């Protein structure tokens, strides 16, 4: 089971990102724990200035916008 964190202050794009990830994970039949990180200090701790960002298993794989479907798939299969 993968732990995935969505970094963002709770803006619309961040929610969109989280929803998309959950949906694609469901489609792929992959179990994930999805966590939203909204604390700015913690987000900055990952080195992300442009949110939303996506962290998979403590590695930042994406920053600066809602990732598209292909990107989410490749992140989930890593």
């Amino acid at each position, binding site marked *: 089971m993968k732990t995935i964190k969505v970094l963002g202050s709770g*803006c619309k794009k961040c929610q969109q990102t989280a929803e998309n990830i959950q949906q694609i994970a469901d489609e792929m039949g992959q179990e994930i724990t999805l966590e939203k990180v909204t604390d700015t200090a913690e*987000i*900055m701790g990952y080195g*992300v200035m*442009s949110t939303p960002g996506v962290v998979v298993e403590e590695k930042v794989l994406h*920053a600066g*916008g809602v990732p598209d479907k292909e990107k989410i798939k490749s992140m989930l299969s890593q």
Partner: protein
Amino acid sequence: MFELFTLLANVVTYDILQLAPSSGLAKSVHFFVEDTSKIFFLLSVIIFVMGLFRSLLAPEKVRLYLEGKPKGLTYFLAVILGAVTPFCSCSSVPLFIGFIEAGIPIGATMAFLIASPMINEVAVVILGTIIGWELTAVYVGTGLLVGILGGWACDVFKMERFVEDYVWKIRTGQIVMPAYDNSLKGRMTFAWGEVKEIVGRIWLYVFIGIAVGAGLHGFVPTTFFADYAGPDNLFAVPLAVLAGIPLYSNATGVIPVAEALLGKGVPIGTVLVLMMSVVAISIPEFVILRKVIRLQGLVYFASFLALAFICVGYLFNALQ
């Protein structure tokens, strides 16, 4: 090309609604239709075009441009970068922490945060087409100058004393550069997303601004402002600045109000500082900044800006 919007307003006001051209209502409706169509059109087009170039203007890039530069130079760079970088007050905090963490002086950081909401491509183009390029140049020049002075003052008065302790403890390590899809299709998708997001966020402010402008234009007699906000009234400038503190709008929303006030003969300095105060000193922005700067620091900061705006107002009214 902008006659198109005047034409549209003519058709709506005089042909469809059949209003008598001299009536206050006709003036208001005409103003409202022309400004609504023109501003929302320009807003969408400019945001879209800027969206195509986002990778150049990402905050991560700005941080790199400012990092390690001599202090005196950083103020100038910061205000110019602030002016060209599209900005949402929701990114103030990550930006602030990111800059401080990179060792960029607090003065340059604050200069960036002052200039960014006041001056941007959208406001400049809309302002230029509505109140003329000469006044727009004055607005931009003044905004940059206040940003530079504000940044400098933050360093002189050691604003870093008021930065929350946790900010200094954050270690970001390597900043992650967003991976942008730089194909044309990717850029267009992003740009269109920006249009939807930004217009969705600010349309109400713009709408209210146009409505207020239209009301002033059609229903407030010129003599009212001549009596209360004319060049002879020394209190008009500080009152304009004070009025702008609780009022909040973004730079685009305040333009129609400025347009109507200028049309009523309110002096340029007074209008200019009302605009700047409404945009730059705002409670929502300060609530966000409160996360990184203590209240006392914010009060100093707001007072400095208010004072600077008052000086600017008197200066331009005297020069007029």
